[in-house]
């Protein structure tokens, strides 16, 4: 490694050391520099072998991939993924008629495709609206059916992951305009609109989501004229939209407050009307500023859809619980909840990464708002 023929001072810097030596130098410099770091390093290595290694053994090496009941798994001592072989399809689609389950499967694919397409940079607003309107019609047609030989399926039987996505996307989709309008209303010069917005936001924010869902499912029918009924699913959806609309309003208001007064004045001076000013100048900047808190809310909203179980709607989590009631798989709850956890994590992680990417892109292209 070191050329002894050269002078000692040079020899230290002469040529790069080999990878093994470099790793050793790095480790000594970063992991074992001083007693505290040495102890920390040893503790972490120990914890790694005590925690991660058993998890990997449990999840992969000792796992049982196919069996008729959890008894077979217990003998092997590892994870019982065979549970998913028996109940996985039910967890995803629930009680949707078995032979027709290709329809919700297609809906899932549609949702993923629409989300992926929407996430692409440079999508124009008009194209996006067209894609989502078409997508919604397609989803509704596939879920309901009742034509082209597809059996009619009522919303009671829309279960599992498609239901979770419909609830989350629909809830957020309605909550967004409600939230933006309430945020604008709260800053309105007209007292009636201002007080209405404040009342809505404060009232809804002061009530737990569960209460609101109960009210939506139990009390709304009381107020409807006889003969008219709204399916439980849509009542819950309305409850969701109202709930997240109120939180969203506050997130958007934060963005609105960050817009310099000069922006309003410049728009006024050019003769733009209120809606032109709001939609072309103020909201694009305010929403950009609010992206982190809006995404934060969306992630929360997505996970909160699991509370829907409480009014008797079968989402993906409730489907998993149903599977665990099967006497043959009573001990598979770790596997069941780990699966649900991973499904939710996958969606939330996508949202989180997408928002980071969006912020980076807006900042780089200079389209992000700047204080003036």
């Amino acid at each position, binding site marked *: 490694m070191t050329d002894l023929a050269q002078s000692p001072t040079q020899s230290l810097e002469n040529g790069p050391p080999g990878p093994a030596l470099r790793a050793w130098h790095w480790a000594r410099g970063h992991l074992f520099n001083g007693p505290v770091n040495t102890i920390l390093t040893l503790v972490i290595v120990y914890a790694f072998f005590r925690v991660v290694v058993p998890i990997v053994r449990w999840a992969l090496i000792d796992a049982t991939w196919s069996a008729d009941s959890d008894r077979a798994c217990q003998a092997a001592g590892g994870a019982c993924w065979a549970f998913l072989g028996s109940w996985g399809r039910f967890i995803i689609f629930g009680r949707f008629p078995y032979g027709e389950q290709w329809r919700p499967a297609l809906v899932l694919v549609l949702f993923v495709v629409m989300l992926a397409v929407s996430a692409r940079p440079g999508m124009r607003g008009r194209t996006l609206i067209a894609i989502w309107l078409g997508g919604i019609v397609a989803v509704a047609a596939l879920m309901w059916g009742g034509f082209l030989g597809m059996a009619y399926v009522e919303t009671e039987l829309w279960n599992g992951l498609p239901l979770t996505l419909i609830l989350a996307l629909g809830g957020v989709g309605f909550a967004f305009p409600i939230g933006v309008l309430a945020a604008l209303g709260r800053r309105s010069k007209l007292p009636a609109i201002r007080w209405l917005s404040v009342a809505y936001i404060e009232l809804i924010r002061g009530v737990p989501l569960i209460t609101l869902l109960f009210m939506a499912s139990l009390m709304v029918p009381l107020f409807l004229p006889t003969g008219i009924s709204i399916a439980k699913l849509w009542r819950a959806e309305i409850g969701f939209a109202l709930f997240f609309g109120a939180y969203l309003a506050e997130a958007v208001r934060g963005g609105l407050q960050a817009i*310099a007064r*000069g*922006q309003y*004045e*410049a*728009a*006024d*001076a*050019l*003769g*733009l*009307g209120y809606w*032109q000013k709001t939609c*072309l*100048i103020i909201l*694009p*900047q305010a929403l*950009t500023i609010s992206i982190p808190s809006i995404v934060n809310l969306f992630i929360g909203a997505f996970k909160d859809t699991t509370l829907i179980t409480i009014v008797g709607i079968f989402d993906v989590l409730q489907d998993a619980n149903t599977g665990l009631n099967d006497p043959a798989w009573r001990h598979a709850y770790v596997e069941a909840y780990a699966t649900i956890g991973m499904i939710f994590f996958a969606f939330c992680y996508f949202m989180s990464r997408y928002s980071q990417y969006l912020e980076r892109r807006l900042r780089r*292209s*200079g*389209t*992000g*708002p*700047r204080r*003036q």
Partner: protein
Amino acid sequence: MASIPSAAPQGAEQKMIEFRAVHKWYGDFHVLKDINLVVRRGERVVVCGPSGSGKSTMIRCINRLEEHQKGQILVDGIELTPDAKHVEAIRREVGMVFQQFNLFPHLTVLENLTLAPVWVRKMPKKEAEELAMQLLERVKIPEQAKKYPGQLSGGQQQRVAIARSLCMRPQVMLFDEPTSALDPEMIKEVLDVMVELANEGMTMICVTHEMGFARTVADSMIFMDGGQIVETAPPKEFFANPKSERTKLFLSQILSH
């Protein structure tokens, strides 16, 4: 639109802007006290005075960024009332350039210029873009059209802001201390554009401390102090022989260095 009286045929003596005994208060603070002023078509007026004298407030009343509480303001024969339709009609005819530029940071330079013509004047987008490019040529930065305001220097931003106002083909241009937020080396490029504009016959009201600009361009100087118009005179007379003591003091302060 139709209900608003359109501008009368042009005439040199035509009153473009008129203040009749205008008063304004911020709470108890009396910012504008009995302002009477006539600006004729094609006239260039420079307003100066110490800070807090109400000069910005006065010109901001012309397009109703500020409301006056007493008296009348007429723009091109239309009286400013709280009626939003009247206000928007007047704002279409009055361009304004701000101290802080106030460009829209989320839009490109070109989009900043075309936004109002397309949405307010309902001009076809292509026509608006051609007009915008012409105006960018005029303020000498056509090559920056695709950039965002944040990528430009202060002087360039202010020239874009002037072009943005001109894109609405205004009858009057208001300048609210357009060079006060600029680094010294950028002031000239903005003033050059303003001088050119004045030479083309644009009606202008300009709040500024750039006395060199005032001497070259102004038809009349207005000195304000304590919310009042203290003195009005042609620039030659104003600088050589100011009448009031307050004007003399102010001029000695700003011309001494």
